[in-house]
């Protein structure tokens, strides 16, 4: 019979959350016991001894009211301050974090590494390195929750969200979907495997290949016909995408926008939303419904790779251009149209 009372902690921030939780628990326990004790004493000491006793009222005390308003509030401010520090720390991933891309769909987690490796309901990461997850949803809201790391983040359709962590303890930890998402919500679970760096390199190197994520994105770029307008070395009907990612783009309306993941995604699905200055609307079709979130992420990674490489067709913005591993489902680069394929991915 297992009766765990405290969850494992696999990162420094998890330990920090534990400390805050313990501090708040102690304050709460002291506070409750104090109130219960006083009530208990009053209930005994001032119990009714005869039926005709009538105690004199005490109308109140401003000094007491201020005391028991201000002191608890000051204590609560310490909760607030400590909690906000953790939240802010969690909000901004460090620039050197390694990327993993996550797509939630009813009812599985699909993960892809820049090297092209794919997994379903499994995440492998090495200790000691910050990992940044980019989260996208194919359908409804999910929530990516790793209790051992004390973090979760909703995965909201139409948004890219990020979360990050630096695991420091090898092991296998639960991965849960924490936002109710329909029939098999409680089956949308998996494992996070935290490994020693050497084991991680070995793991990455195993298995078959369908190219890096950027290469997959490049193939998609060809197949969807993007490359007929977005030429790489001369002006086509659309803007040249080389060097675009991470720069500020001048829009037709006069504003500028940072070309980040969310901007690339929006421009694929809704090209007229933020039109680049000098280009006409309604030239590019919307790819809404024509491409999965996984495909969009591959395109984003491909376009990202164009920002830092010169040779067309040889994107190198990948950490481990090794072969893909863990072919848990028939990994299709191009699964056009939102579809219910791979629902029985066989990884439960």
């Amino acid at each position, binding site marked *: 019979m297992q009766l765990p009372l405290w969850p494992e902690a696999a990162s420094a921030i998890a330990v920090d959350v534990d400390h805050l939780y313990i501090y708040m628990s102690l304050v709460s326990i002291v506070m409750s016991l104090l109130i219960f004790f006083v009530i208990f004493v009053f209930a005994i000491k001032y119990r009714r001894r005869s039926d005709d006793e009538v105690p004199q009222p005490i109308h109140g005390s401003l000094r007491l009211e201020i005391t028991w308003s201000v002191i608890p509030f000051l204590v609560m401010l310490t909760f607030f301050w400590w909690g906000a520090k953790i939240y*802010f720390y969690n909000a901004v991933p460090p620039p050197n974090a390694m990327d993993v891309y996550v797509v939630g769909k009813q009812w599985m987690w699909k993960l892809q590494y820049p090297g092209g490796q794919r997994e379903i309901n499994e995440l492998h990461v090495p200790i000691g390195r910050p990992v940044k997850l980019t989260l996208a949803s194919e359908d409804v809201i999910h929530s990516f929750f790793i209790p051992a790391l004390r*973090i979760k983040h909703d995965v909201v359709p139409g948004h890219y969200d990020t979360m990050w962590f630096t695991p420091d303890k090898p092991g296998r930890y639960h991965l849960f979907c924490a936002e109710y998402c329909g029939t098999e919500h*409680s089956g949308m679970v998996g494992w996070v495997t935290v490994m020693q760096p050497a084991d991680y390199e070995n793991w990455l190197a195993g298995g078959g290949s369908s190219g890096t994520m950027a290469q997959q994105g490049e193939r998609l770029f060809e197949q969807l016909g993007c490359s007929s307008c977005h030429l790489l070395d001369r002006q086509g009907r659309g803007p040249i995408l080389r060097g675009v990612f991470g720069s500020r783009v001048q829009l037709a309306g006069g504003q500028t926008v940072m070309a980040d993941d969310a901007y690339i995604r929006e421009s694929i699905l809704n090209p007229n939303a933020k039109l680049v200055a000098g280009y006409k609307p309604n030239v590019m079709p919307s790819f809404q419904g024509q491409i999965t979130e996984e495909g969009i992420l591959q395109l984003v990674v491909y376009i990202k790779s164009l920002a830092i490489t010169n040779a067309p067709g040889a994107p190198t913005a990948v950490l481990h251009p090794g072969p893909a591993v863990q072919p848990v489902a028939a990994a299709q680069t191009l699964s056009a149209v939102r579809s219910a394929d791979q629902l029985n991915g066989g990884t439960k």
Partner: protein
Amino acid sequence: MSTALQEPEIKETPNYLNAEYGWKSWLFTTDHKRIAVLYLISISIMFALGGVFAGLIRMELLTPEGDLFNSDTYNKIFTMHGVVMIFFFLIPSIPATFGNFFLPMMVGAKDLAFPRINLLSWYIYVVGGLFGLAAILMGGVDTGWTFYTPFSTTYSNTFVITAASAAFIAGFSSILTGLNFIVTVHKMRAPGMTWGRLPLFVWANYATALIQVLGTPVVAITLALVGLERAFHIGIFDPAIGGDPILFQHMFWFYSHPAVYIMILPGMGVISELVTCFSRKGVFGYSFIAGSSLGIAIIGFLVWGHHMFVTGMSMYAGLYFSLLTMLVAVPSAIKVFNWTATMFRGSISYETPMLYAFGFIGLFTIGGLTGLFLGTLGTDVHLTDTYFVVAHFHYVMVGGMVVAYMGALHFWWPKITGKMYPEGWGKFSALLVFVGFNLTFFPQFILGYLGMPRRYHAYAPEFQVLNVMSTAGATVLGVGFLIPLIYLLWSLKYGKAAGNNPWGAKGLEWTTQSPPTTFNFDETPIVTEEAYAYAKHQEEAHVG
């Protein structure tokens, strides 16, 4: 004040129950007391229904595998548990029953300001309830009571529009009750009943009424938009058709967080009445308890974002919502401290209602303090959407509100029916409720910190022991609610006559006969003293 009317012939005296007979005299009544009784019966049925769903949830969770129901059925069961309990029990519970019955009497009025609107509100509630039953009978709904988009608008294949209509319709009943209370408190107070003399139960219901009137229209709009998107594919919340699902959450919680205070404030009002009565002593810090009700109502409108810390909203917005959440905890703390101080040098007796009041203070304290864990950003990220949240809001909603409701029922039952219930059984079941409740929900705090997500049909095997404890507790809790049902019904026929004021309580409602006559008071009372003036008129303290 008559004190000698405790003989069996009290049945002969005319009162609101025997003033007229026949079903028409009930279904077309405009007497606030009869409408309160209609509400009492209706919400008891809904409470029983919601309780059955709760029992089914706990049975499924005895084992880690999802083996009793299939996933879809389980999802429908917890959804209907939430919808029924929140929209059809917790929100109307105390205002529509004890508020309806006693608010006019406490201010010295013959009825509410708009008796026919009061009856209308009950009919609207019934229609809403029928929509809810229809949704269940047609096959149920599986969105969770929160109706989160785009699941509810695009992906669910269940009767979302019917269930949302049920909540939508019931909301209007709530608005009308609130409106009636506000006007009654402003315009119908008896001579001498100044704002500073209002019983704290009236203050609490007044603050509740403000939220009902200001907040409920927003959830009505939100649910209507869900219906429009689902039926006509107008893109509001679903990103695939140009909407934003986070918009829904902002609109939903803008009402549904204040709605939490709709559910708890009237309970706090009850506790103020119980603590003073069974300490036989004027309340400590009257203006702070009354003012904290208004404070909760106002600040309660500004904290909704604390339900959304992990949705990806701006971290600066998170900062703001977290800080205000700390602030809204202060008025609740003020109430607990003032109740405690009221007992100081009191004359405390331990009848059943007071046991419920003790239970409320203990459980609400735990519920309130654990709320701080969810208002604190760093801990909420881990705890949100886990069983910690389930445990927290059940400590407030069941440990707080339902326990207050049971306290109110036992406190005012003699006035409503003219009969006493068996005190021994009352104390015994109050104890069962307290023990069963803690055994059900305390393990869920641990489960939550361990990381068990809520709304899970099947769960990891290491969580089983705590879940078995929880189910065992739920069984005890269920018995604790069944026993009062039996002895209260029994008391209607066999209970001893209660007399006008069995507790020696203060307040205008205790100056009338039990049960009261149709127009409450033979003459309009003239109020010459503050609320809970137990020390004055000592000779009257012997009553009962």
